[in-house]
């Protein structure tokens, strides 16, 4: 998917990142934030949206400047652009809610080194039109958010008995704190990956029949 020439805009432009090339589940990129901030669904959502913002904005700008930026300083320019938007997101979240900012910690700023973003800039935005880059970036971003949420929701419900901070399990429910602790992050992601592998295997087995 990386070296495509400009192509027609299809639904695929958007959905690619949602499922087929999901950055977390399929491409295994950006694992650090995926595991670090998903001990609650809210953190996962905020992180996902912040990343989506950076993806869209940097995709747009990189695409816009794609014919201006010389090849030699390409990566350096992308990094400056990305870092700019990340810093904006950082300040934005701080301005919206200090609690959220504290929970996400340095991981908002670490979006800058998230390889999904530089990867998109390099592989997609630098070759496609601004609108398509934004749409594709949004797809990737939502795919990332989706992955974060699927971890965050499981971890929060099992680990704290709540969802988005609202208690949803009965009072006497025994919470499984391991899921909000660091090992739980690894376990839940491994669990999801195994589930997908299992589904894929089952499907190919059925097709083979």
């Amino acid at each position: 998917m990386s070296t495509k020439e400009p192509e027609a805009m299809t639904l695929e432009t958007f959905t690619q990142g949602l499922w087929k090339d999901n950055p977390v589940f399929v491409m295994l990129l950006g694992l650090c934030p995926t595991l670090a901030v998903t001990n609650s669904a809210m953190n996962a959502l905020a992180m996902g949206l912040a990343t989506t913002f950076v993806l869209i904005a940097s995709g747009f700008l990189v695409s816009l400047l794609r014919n201006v930026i010389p090849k030699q300083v390409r990566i350096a320019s992308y990094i400056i652009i990305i870092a700019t938007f990340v810093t904006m997101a950082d300040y934005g979240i701080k301005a919206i809610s200090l609690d959220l900012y504290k929970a996400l910690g340095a991981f908002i700023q670490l979006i800058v080194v998230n390889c999904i973003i530089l990867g998109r800039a390099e592989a997609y935005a630098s070759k496609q039109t601004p609108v398509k880059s934004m749409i594709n970036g949004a797809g990737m971003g939502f795919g990332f958010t989706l992955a974060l949420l699927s971890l965050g929701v499981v971890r929060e419900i099992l680990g704290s008995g709540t969802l988005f901070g609202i208690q949803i399990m009965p009072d006497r429910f025994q919470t499984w704190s391991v899921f909000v602790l660091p090992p739980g992050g690894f376990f839940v992601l491994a669990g999801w990956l195994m589930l997908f592998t299992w589904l894929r295997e089952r499907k190919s087995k059925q097709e083979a029949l």
Partner: protein
Amino acid sequence: MSAGTSSSKLVITLGGIAVFSGVLLALTYEITKPMIAKNESEALEAAVFEVLPGAVARENFRLDDTGLRKVEEGSTEEPNLYAGINEAGERVGFALPGEARGYADVVRVLYGYNPENKQVVGLQVLSSNETPGLGDRIEKDPAFQENFTALDASLAHEIETVKNGEKTEPWQIDGISGATVSSKAIGKALRLSTNEWVPKLNAALEAGE
């Protein structure tokens, strides 16, 4: 730099992007600065009000070897303690910070100290990373918080944490069973902080500010 693209073009492009992002960031910074400041001050205020029952306003102070000074809003001096003012305009006490090693990481607290009766009158955990369900009860457990409504800080005896159910003296903290380490950390944070600050504060107050 290679031939092909002249190096002046490289520098100009890169410089242009840098300038652009600098401007964008400066703008973001200026816009969010007041919002962030407001958030921070609200958070601080909420904490101060929480640890000093009855307080509705706050005054900033700096206590060092030269004595106790009031720090006005907007001054360049960093305040290191805060006074709470009640509706009647009287000072109900000071909010001081403390920290000690907990189970997982450093536990940071803010506590209210009333110089009149030499008591700790409230405590809030500012940051901790204790185990959910076990150590994090230091933040939420009402029975544990009860310890800090009138904890003797006259320094006739050092503040200490005792086993759950074994509190007999006013300077003792009744620990949480199963979270001995975390409850001891709170005791230690208070002990260290009061030992350091209370004599200085009392001296400054007696000298009359």
